[in-house]
């Protein structure tokens, strides 16, 4: 009993030294080895009110994505395309340290990162979101709520967005009338109910966040671990296992061998998620 109390006190007072002792043995306080990720669970269509939704857990880290569809007129500079607008929220319930009222810079960064991916068509070809007549398009508003901010948020948010897009079904639109605006078809058309169609998504990206701690690479860090890391690097691999994005915002240096190890770990996750 006395020993465990001292261990707890040591962990609270000297978190870095405590963590370093684990890393020197190739282990982490939660029992994982350094290159081991946390278990992933993905549940689709969890919110009845949304057009599609997904709840993704990465260990304890949790994100809920919900998509609402709206009909709009296309933008002038992109006439043949609809749009996917991603908004990431970090409500104050997501961690003990967040304070209500302020939009956190972290939420803005995640929004920018995911929004950029969706706008560039890296998730799915935006031309599918148009109506045949071309006068109106779908706008898919994807709101991602981080319910438990336990590290590797960029991964859990991207996985939730992808899962929600996979579950999305676009309702069939009636041919455009004289007014030019398409309207959702009523369910009892003479030809029977119009079939909603799924989006053809690009081969899904797989994200992986890694940390650098005293020269060692730590895969999929929790929030506690992230606070101790010298640097964080997020990478994404595409369907062929090629790198499709790396972001390392400052921090300590990153060796080539680290990048290779991280790439391997991302490939492993990709294979585990998408199957062989």
């Amino acid at each position, binding site marked *: 009993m006395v020993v465990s109390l001292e261990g707890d006190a040591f962990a609270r007072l000297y978190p870095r030294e405590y963590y370093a002792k684990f890393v020197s043995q190739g282990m982490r306080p939660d029992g994982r080895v350094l290159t081991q990720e946390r278990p992933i669970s993905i549940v689709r269509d969890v919110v009845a009110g*949304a*057009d599609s939704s997904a709840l993704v857990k990465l260990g304890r880290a949790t994100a809920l994505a*919900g998509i609402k569809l709206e009909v709009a007129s296309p933008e002038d500079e992109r006439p043949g395309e609809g749009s996917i607008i991603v*908004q990431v929220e970090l*409500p104050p*319930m997501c961690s*003990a340290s967040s304070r*209500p009222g302020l939009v956190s810079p972290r939420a803005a960064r995640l929004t920018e990162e995911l929004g950029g991916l969706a706008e560039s068509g890296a998730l799915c070809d935006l031309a599918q979101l148009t109506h045949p007549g071309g006068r109106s398009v779908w706008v898919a508003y994807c709101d991602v709520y981080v319910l438990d901010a336990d590290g590797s948020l960029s991964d859990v948010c991207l996985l939730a967005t992808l899962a929600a897009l996979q579950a999305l079904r676009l309702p069939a639109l009636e041919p455009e009338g004289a007014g030019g605006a398409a309207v959702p078809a009523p369910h009892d058309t003479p030809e029977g109910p119009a079939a909603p169609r799924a989006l053809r998504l690009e081969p899904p990206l797989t994200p992986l966040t890694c940390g650098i701690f005293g020269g060692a690479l730590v895969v999929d860090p929790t929030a506690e671990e992230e606070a101790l890391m010298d640097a964080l690097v997020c990478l994404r691999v595409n369907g062929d296992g090629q790198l499709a994005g790396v972001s390392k915002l400052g921090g300590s240096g990153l060796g080539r061998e680290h990048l290779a190890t991280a790439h391997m770990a991302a490939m492993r996750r990709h294979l585990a998620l998408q199957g062989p």
Partner: protein
Amino acid sequence: MEYVNTVGLRLDGRRPNEIRQLRAEMSTLASADGSATFEMGNTKVLAAVYGPREASNRAQTDTSKATVRCEYSMAAFSSGERRRRGKSDRRATETSLAIANTLEQNILTELLPRTQIDIYVQVLQADGGMRCAAINAAFLALADAGVPMRDSVAACAAGYLDGTALLDLNYTEDGGGGPEVAVALQTGLHQVLMLQTDSKLSMEVFEEVVELASNGCRAVAEFLRTTLLAHVGRLSLATSIAKSEA
């Protein structure tokens, strides 16, 4: 629109004094000190409690009791039309205050001086009765966090449409233009903690609706009690297993 048909059934097939199906789950978020999801029909809310912990703002620290704060917000995809972002949503702020004030009355704040208890409520699906569902969820989350409380709290709303008092209005009935009264009770002490309506209604109707809502609160309280007992049962089983393994 006919809200109560000739057989006396409502739009969703309920009888006038019938509550929607209730579901609840406790300890749904690992990071929070206490958390719970609570569903009333299609309305689904998630509540998380942090605290009692050291007050973040030293100037506002109360040396005699705990400070209870609440933030209530609705997910953008929770309702029919997508909600535009806006932190300065006055309605949400008002609901936050109502939830905090209602539950503060029930917490033994004098036992926890200089601390603060944060209650965060997120509406995931909105189908009427969000305020009451939020209070019920927050009560479960407070219990999950082990915050000392006086009594159990339960909330339920009732309205009046087509000359009939209706319990636990859904979104369509809420938009029917009739009066709605939200009630929160301390069910053991028989005290009314919250009573709220914005509509004009006669004294007889008011009493009838409040009585119906109070009955609804008692039904909800019974359900909350069952949920709490089941949760405590699971906890004590887990503790006894942990002890036997140690």
